[in-house]
């Protein structure tokens, strides 16, 4: 068992926010999915206070070693999330981490307050780093902004708060340290790296939103470098992610200093990637994993 933010997890592999819809998966895969639930904790897609339709399609661009997405945080808004989805999430066989994002600090305060009483929620991830909404990734790439934001939010939640940082900084260690000093209970990184693609032969960007976020193996070395750098600075646990495809990649992130590893894009290639990676990791590390 691994202790993380006051939760006991059976293994270090969870999902990256926005890369696995457990409710949709339950409908598609049925009982087998619940029986072999792929993650030791489940992170919801990022929720905002108001409903969002998300960005216009096309939203995907494939790379040789990953993809660019411009999803844009489509979600039903916090009220309907609490009414409709939370009870369903509560029946999943894994602790729930809810990811939230706000355009103004007040929005996040409201959201934290509305979520605070809900026992279904084991922890809250603060998405300071979405490249697909305007101003999304500023907080998570700036020490001053991220400290100010955490300081403002911290008093409004009794939940464990995980700050999800943006990779678009030369000093992820400073951003993380700032979040830690202002009360973050854990750091999660990296979110997608801002990027753009043109359709072959076209002078227009392919993605409906113009640009998007890069994920998958292409960003793995960036993730490894940032996790190592943050780990050398903060004392709170780290959820490392970025391009994890197998147990070896997960082990490398753990060696770099992560307590948990999140799987994102690899879920798209293998719906049961979480289970597979956890067992590959166990094979590589044996019992050592449990004590990391």
């Amino acid at each position, binding site marked *: 068992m691994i202790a993380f933010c006051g939760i006991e997890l059976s293994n270090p592999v969870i999902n990256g926010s*926005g*890369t*696995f*819809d457990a409710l*949709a*998966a339950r*409908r*598609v*895969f*049925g009982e*087998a*999915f619940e029986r*072999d639930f792929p993650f030791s904790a489940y992170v919801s*897609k990022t929720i905002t206070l108001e409903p969002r*339709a*998300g960005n*216009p*399609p*096309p*939203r*995907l661009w*494939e*790379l*040789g*070693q*990953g*993809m660019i*997405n411009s*999803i844009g945080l*489509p979600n039903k808004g916090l009220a309907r999330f609490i009414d409709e989805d939370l009870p369903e999430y509560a029946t999943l066989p894994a602790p729930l981490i809810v990811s939230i994002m706000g355009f103004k600090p007040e929005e996040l305060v409201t959201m934290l307050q509305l979520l605070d009483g809900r026992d279904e929620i084991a922890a809250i991830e603060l998405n300071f780093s979405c490249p697909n909404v305007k101003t999304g990734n500023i907080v998570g790439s700036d020490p001053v902004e991220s400290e100010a934001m955490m300081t403002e939010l911290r008093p409004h939640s009794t939940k464990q708060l995980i700050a999800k940082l943006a990779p678009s900084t030369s000093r992820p260690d400073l951003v993380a340290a700032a979040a830690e000093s202002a009360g973050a209970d854990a750091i999660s990184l990296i979110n997608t790296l801002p990027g753009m693609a043109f359709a072959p032969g076209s002078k227009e960007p*392919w993605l*409906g939103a113009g640009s998007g976020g890069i994920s*998958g193996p292409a960003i793995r070395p960036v993730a490894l470098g940032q996790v190592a750098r943050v780990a050398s600075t903060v004392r709170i646990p780290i959820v490392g992610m970025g391009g994890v495809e197998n147990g070896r990649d997960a082990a490398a992130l753990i060696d770099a200093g992560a307590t948990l590893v999140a799987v994102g*894009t690899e*879920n*798209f*290639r*293998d*719906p*049961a990637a979480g*289970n597979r990676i956890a067992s590959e990791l166990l094979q590589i590390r044996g019992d050592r994993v449990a004590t990391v």
Partner: protein
Amino acid sequence: MSDALGIERPQAPFGRRVAAVTARIEHGPYVSLTVRDSGGPRPIAGQFYMLQTVEDWGGGVDGRPYLPRALSFARVEQEGDGLLLDFLLEDVGPGTHRITELAVNDEMLIAGPFGNGFELNAASWPILVAGGIGLAPIVALDDEIRDLDGVRATIFVGMRTNEHASAAAHYGLEHELATEDGSSGVRGYVTELLAPLLSAKNADHVVYACGPPPMLEAVRSICAEHEISCQLAMESGMACGFGACFGCVVPTHDGYTRLCVDGPVLDGDKLDTALVAGAGH
């Protein structure tokens, strides 16, 4: 979800599984590949699978393919405990190129069946419209219709050339053909076969169609004009196929809809247009 005939929408096994190629046949520019699926339930017409090869997935144009590719099955047969799934492909890029290169005994990783499939309404006279590679789910649907008593579909197939049309012949489809170059059947678009029949209004029809976006849009608007309901098997870029990524959305009257879980078959009257950004090639 169950359709009007009470067919339950099959649930995919969780995860992906290995499926070996048992046959590969070229039909002009198209290739049909049959794979043995020992792990999945029998799919319904219009459902699709996410496929990738076990070996050498990647290394093509710009290092792609990386993500699995969505493919509708064209035919399903029971074989012992398992299924033989038949896919019909057109090589349009690195992913389909790699898959069409496979030989017998080569292995794929498949996940699925995914998506809703067609909702067959046996009370009405079905009209099936296939354009190009959109033939695949139409073959599957016709197979389902042939298993029913007393229902027969009218089938229109549109192809670029006679060569492409050989795929329709291969599957034994009883159809009327339109080719763009007139090399076989009527010269022109398949919708030119559809329009007169709908205008005649001799029966209660439902139209089931799959093909390139402009064709689907033509079908949608002809049907709308004649107030005939239509089910369109659509395409959009997909990363996952099971609702995880929110990448495959198309705009409908209900907002952006994930085509992989709420489609790929959509009712024509849910759409303003079937011309979806980023779909087709």
